[in-house]
């Protein structure tokens, strides 16, 4: 969590959705020591912006209209290795994690993250520019369960089936499935049984109230 004193963290934001892009920009510019030097919604333009401004951190959305965010990440990693990449995406699934990991992505941030979480992730990534450790990378890449996911994990532990959970929470089975899939990914589980075992071992559900401070 250290960073060179007095140096402004320069950030480029890449997000194809204007509303979210603007929200992120406002949030980061409010934070002290962080300057947004470029904003775009297009993958190729993102690469140009990086080439031009050489930002400390690239906040990158994965779904872009022209080339995929993964491709942008790959090119940026190859050409401008001193730019840290924080992937800002809605997909909390295994495929992306697995594909992004070999690229040396510094941060992985859900789009639903709050302003504070975004600022924190940017700062940590910028710090990682000079001092990268496997721990820090692993920490950043580990995402906490959301309250909803906790709720569902609790019901899984209680032995409820997807359909029962859906009925109880008044949501669709597909939505439950999606949550369950995300829970598996976050816990590194391959099945329900495994997820329940990990939940017990790590005491995730016991620390329910401590929630976010756990990280």
């Amino acid at each position: 969590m250290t960073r060179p004193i007095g140096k402004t963290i320069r950030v480029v934001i890449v997000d194809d959705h204007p509303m979210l892009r603007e929200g992120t920009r406002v949030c980061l510019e409010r934070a002290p020591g962080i300057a947004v030097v470029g904003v775009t919604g297009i993958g190729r333009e993102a690469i140009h912006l990086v080439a031009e401004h050489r930002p400390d951190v690239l906040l990158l959305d994965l779904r872009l209209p022209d080339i995929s965010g993964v491709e942008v990440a790959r090119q940026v990693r190859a050409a401008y290795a001193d730019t840290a990449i924080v992937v800002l995406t809605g997909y909390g699934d295994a495929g992306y994690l697995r594909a992004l990991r070999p690229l040396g992505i510094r941060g992985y941030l859900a789009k639903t993250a709050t302003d504070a979480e975004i600022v924190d992730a940017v700062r940590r990534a910028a710090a990682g520019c000079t001092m990268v450790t496997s721990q820090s990378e692993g920490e950043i890449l580990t995402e906490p369960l959301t309250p909803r996911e906790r709720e569902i994990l609790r019901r899984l532990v209680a032995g409820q089936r997807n359909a029962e959970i859906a009925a109880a929470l008044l949501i669709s089975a597909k939505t439950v499935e999606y949550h369950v899939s995300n829970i598996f990914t976050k816990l590194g589980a391959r099945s329900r049984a495994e997820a329940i075992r990990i939940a017990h071992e790590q005491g995730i559900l016991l620390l329910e109230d401590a929630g976010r401070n756990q990280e």
Partner: protein
Amino acid sequence: MPPRFQVPRPQRWAVAAIVILGLVSLGDLSLATAEQPPALGVRARQASGGLIVSWVQPGGLAWDAGVRPGDRIIAVDGRPVVATDAPSTVASTSEITTESGDGLVRTVPSRVLEPFTLSRLYRLAFIAIAASFAVVGVLIYVLAGDAIVGAIALGFSVAGAVLFLSLIAAPSGADWAVTARHAAALAFGAGALLLFLAFPVDRLRAPRGRRLAIGCLSATAVLLAAYGWTYFFRPAAYDALRPVTYAVLIGEVVGAGALLVAGLLATPAERRDIATPLSVVAVGAFVALAPPVCLILVPSLLDISSIVRPEIALLSLAALPASLGTAVLSRRFFGITRILRRGLVALLVWIALVGSYTAGFAGLARWSSGQNAPVPVDLAAPAATVALVAATFWPLQHRLRRALERRLFRDVYDYRATLRELSAELVQFGELSAVARHALDRLGRTLDLSWAAIELTAEPAPLRFRWEGDAVIAAPDEGGRHVIATSPAAYQVPLIADGETIGMLQVGAKRHDIDLLPEDRELIATVAPHLATALRNALLIRQLEAQVEALADRERTLATLNDRLLSVQEEERRRLALELHDDPLQRAIQLSRELGAWADCPRAGHWQEIVEDIIASLRAICDGLHPPVLDDFGLPAGLEWLAARLRAETDLDVRVAIEAVDGDPFGRLEPDLELALYRVAQEALNNCLKHAEARSITVTLRREPARVLLRVADDGRGPAANGVTGGSQVGLGLLGMRERLQRWHGRVALEGGQPRGAVLTAEVRLGEAHGDETDR
């Protein structure tokens, strides 16, 4: 035979002109000589007893009358020889009386032959024959590419012309005319033999032919030398020379005839057509050869030359060219494509008939006269002769010719062999037009038809095949309006196969308007069922092929349509997913973020959960429509994602194994193929879930250099329980998978697993051209 004719050369025209000029002069000379006082052909010398015959023109008037050297001349021009008479007076006398050593007294008048031989008609006929020789010979000479053939033909024709021209003058006993007649006859015989040694089949190139030619020429030369010796030294020896000369002459001419027959038989049928110059000349050669053969050689052979009546001879002379000419013009006489062979037959028949008429008349004359002296017979009155010939000649020659043709031309008239061969040959053809063409060609050639046609009505579009001469025209029957003008069919037979009339076999008359024989009709009627069967088979094959082609076409169209439907569907899903992602999802995310600022509000947690559900729900929908991982990371990631979803949904143990040869990364495939295989895997996993009651599923994706294999194996009830055929849903599923991969010619199979369960295998060969790729 190589082509023997060429564009006429100028120098040959010049030679021909000189020859014609010479012949015309000779004709003039002959006519003039015939008007002169008769020459007896006798020379005398002064002897003790008066005048003794010292020389007789061999074959001359005096010689014919029996006067020989050594005879004593008793009287000259009707008065007794006196001592003062000089030997030279004998040469210009018109009548002498001699007494031979045995006391026989002969009177040689100037007019030995009847006045007829000196008549205009007689001369005109001989001039005509001479002219026909000259024309034929000059034609061959001018046209022949081969110089030897040309020279021989010219020599032959000149000899013939000289022979007949000198015959005009011969009755007057002129020395030159008698000698010329003798020499020309010898040259004519030799020329005929040589001509047909070299033409129409060149035998001169063979040693045997050359020996024959040399022998012929040597004999002629020896005979001519012998004649010269006789002429100058021993006129009496002509008695012995004359039969020898005749024998050689007859041998040569008969040999020439035999060579002509053999040559024509050896010439391929298609070359023996009236249209070729070769045939024109050959027919001309007939015309030239026939009169001397019929008028001189046949009577000579029969030793009746002295009693052939001039009227009959002239009738023959007129009848032969007339009948041959009529035959060539109307083509009735020859009848068929093998015109020369048939012409030859006609000639033989003609010779036989005329010969027998001649002999008959001669016998009749002898019988009526009771002695063998030339007799004027009333029967020979021209009217009676003409009536007899007119009544018997045509029907007789027709029947004789037909009989001879049947014996000679077995290929034409052996119907059984034709039928057998045709039946055997038809089996070998499978294609419709080949069958029709062959049958028509065979029938047309065998029967010498003017045309033959097959009309097929069995097909949706009627077909017509027409044979005419050498070409077969296949034309669609445009509602009966044929492009080809059709003469009315002489005979037609329905083509019936399996009790169904598939068309008609029609034939026109034989060529040259000859009517069909009963045997011809019989042959056609017998061939028809065989032909119909062969045609029907060919039709069925054709229909089958058309149906197969139509089915294949329909399948291709369906596949293309299906492919397009799938593409449209995928495109729509992609678009829907994108729209959901771009707007509602992003707004929900924004809302979620902004709720973060309201954390201290008591309801905030609840709202947060609702928003989170909305987001999750939208993402679930988007991913279900079109998983973005597939686009961004490829098929392995897509399959992992599928497996993860399945794990989250059920308690199934789902494993994904990605294999690539030699440890290479799996890499990316063509995007459409990735999507297709992804959908196949999705469908397969769904099937496992619904039907298999499995506990674990293994998805294997294996990439090899030339192919990609996708295996979905479960430990469920197996394909039999799933019911590939019984369970229509599984069956349809398989069908759907095949259609998905059809663009890449992929194969999908569902088999039993070991020890239990089912294995679905999809295989796609890489780099295989998928030519039916649709425009998307």
